[in-house]
C-alpha cells in the first residue's frame, strides 16, 4: 500500500476514538497549588521556543529541585545558568515570546506541560533568591503562564526512562566531543575537545 499523507484534521480523526472528557478538559490557564508542588519538586525541564525563521528549538535546563520559583499563579521564574552560550532560546524570545516547558521529575512517570509567553529580565532581588553554589543567575526567564496540563505517563513507561535496569548500554553511543569534532569539521583532536569540555564543565558549571 502506498504512502498517504494526512493533511486534514478530518483524516486524522477518522477511525480514531475521540479523547476522553478527562483528557480534553485537563488544561488550566494558571499555576494552581498542585502544579506548584510539582514545580517545586522538578530539577529538569526542556524549553521549546521559536526562531525568527519559524524553526523550533528545544533546550534542556537542570538544577537542584526547587530552582524555579512560582511568583504568582500566572508567573514562573526560571534562573539562567551557564550553557553553551549559543543563547538560542534567549535570542528566539527577543523576536517571539511563545514558549512551552516540560517539567520532569526523575523517578516520576507523570510530567507537567506549561505554555505561555516569556521575557528575560535582569532583576537583582529575584536573582538573589536563586543562588546555587554561591552563583547568582545573571538573567531570569519570567514566563506568563497561559496553559498548564499534567501529561499521561505512557511515554515515560514505554521508554523505561526511570528504570535503570532497562537503560541501554551507552558505551558505543557517540559523545558530544566526537559529534562536535565531526559536525564542526574541527582540526582539534577528540582528546583536546574532551579536555576542553571537561574544563568547561568544571569551571562554567554555575
Amino acid at each position: 500500500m502506498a504512502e498517504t499523507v494526512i493533511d486534514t484534521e478530518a483524516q486524522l480523526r477518522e477511525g480514531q476514538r475521540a479523547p476522553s472528557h478527562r483528557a480534553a478538559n485537563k488544561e488550566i490557564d494558571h499555576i494552581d497549588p498542585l502544579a506548584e508542588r510539582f514545580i517545586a519538586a522538578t530539577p529538569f525541564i526542556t524549553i521549546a521556543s521559536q526562531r525568527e525563521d519559524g524553526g523550533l528549538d528545544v533546550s534542556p535546563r537542570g538544577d537542584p529541585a526547587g530552582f524555579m520559583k512560582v511568583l504568582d499563579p500566572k508567573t514562573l521564574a526560571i534562573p539562567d545558568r551557564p550553557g553553551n552560550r549559543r543563547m538560542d532560546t534567549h535570542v528566539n524570545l527577543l523576536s517571539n515570546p511563545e514558549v512551552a516547558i516540560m517539567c520532569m521529575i526523575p523517578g516520576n512517570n507523570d510530567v507537567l506541560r506549561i505554555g505561555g509567553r516569556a521575557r528575560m529580565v535582569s532583576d537583582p532581588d529575584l536573582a538573589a533568591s536563586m543562588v546555587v553554589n554561591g552563583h547568582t543567575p545573571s538573567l531570569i526567564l519570567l514566563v506568563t503562564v497561559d496553559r498548564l496540563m499534567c501529561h499521561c505517563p505512557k511515554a515515560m513507561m514505554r521508554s523505561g526512562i526511570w528504570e535503570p535496569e532497562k537503560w541501554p548500554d551507552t558505551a558505543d553511543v557517540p559523545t558530544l566531543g566526537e559529534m562536535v569534532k565531526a559536525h564542526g569539521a574541527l582540526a582539534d583532536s577528540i582528546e583536546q575537545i574532551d579536555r576542553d569540555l571537561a574544563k568547561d564543565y568544571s569551571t562554567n558549571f554555575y
Partner: protein
Amino acid sequence: MTKASTIQSVDALRERVRPPARMSVDKVIDHIDDLAAEFIAATPFIIISSVRADGQVDLSPRGDPPGFMKVLDRKTLAIPDRPGNRRADTFTNIISNPEVGIICMIPGHEDTLRLAGRAQLVDEHALAETMVVAGHTPPLIIKVTVNRLLSHCAKAMVRSHIWDPEHWPDGAKVPSHGKMVKTHGALSQTLDEMETLVLDDKLNNLY
C-alpha cells in the same frame, strides 16, 4: 543595586553573556550523519515541540524501546505513533504548521541530541510494519525532514542529576496525574476512581 530590567536586544543579552566557543557555533549540521544515526538508534525517549495554529508552542513526550525511530536517509527521520491521550495536539499542529523541534535523550547518557525540521504525518503500511512493538503496528508515522542537528552539552543533565537515582526526589510528595486531572478538569469522580482509571489506561493502552 541596579533595578529590574527586561532584556530586549541581542546587544543587551551579550553584555551579560560571553560569546560562545567556536566549537559551539560550528556544531550545527543540516542532516543526520552516521554519529547522529548511532545516537538515534540508542534513544528510547524524545520530546517533540510543535506550533499550534494560533502560534503557541506545544511540547510532547514520546517513548518506546531504543531503536523505535528509523533513519530512512540522511534527511529523513521516521517516528511511529503510539496511543497517547488522543488529544492529538502534536498531529493537529503539524497539519497546520510542519515545523518541529526534537530533543533525543538516552537514559544514563549525559549528552543530548537536538534536531529540527519539517514534519509530515503519513499512513504508510510497509514502513509501519518495520515499527511493530509488542504486536502493535503504529497507525501513523511522523516523517521529519531534518534541517538542523546539534549535539547538546551535558550541564543541564548533570546539574539536575537526572540519571543519578541516588539524588532522585521522594515521589510520594509529588501530586499524581489522577489528582491533577481531577482538580484541573473539575471532575466529579473520586480521587480513587481517577487513580483506577489512570492505572487501567496505563495497563491496557500502552500500545
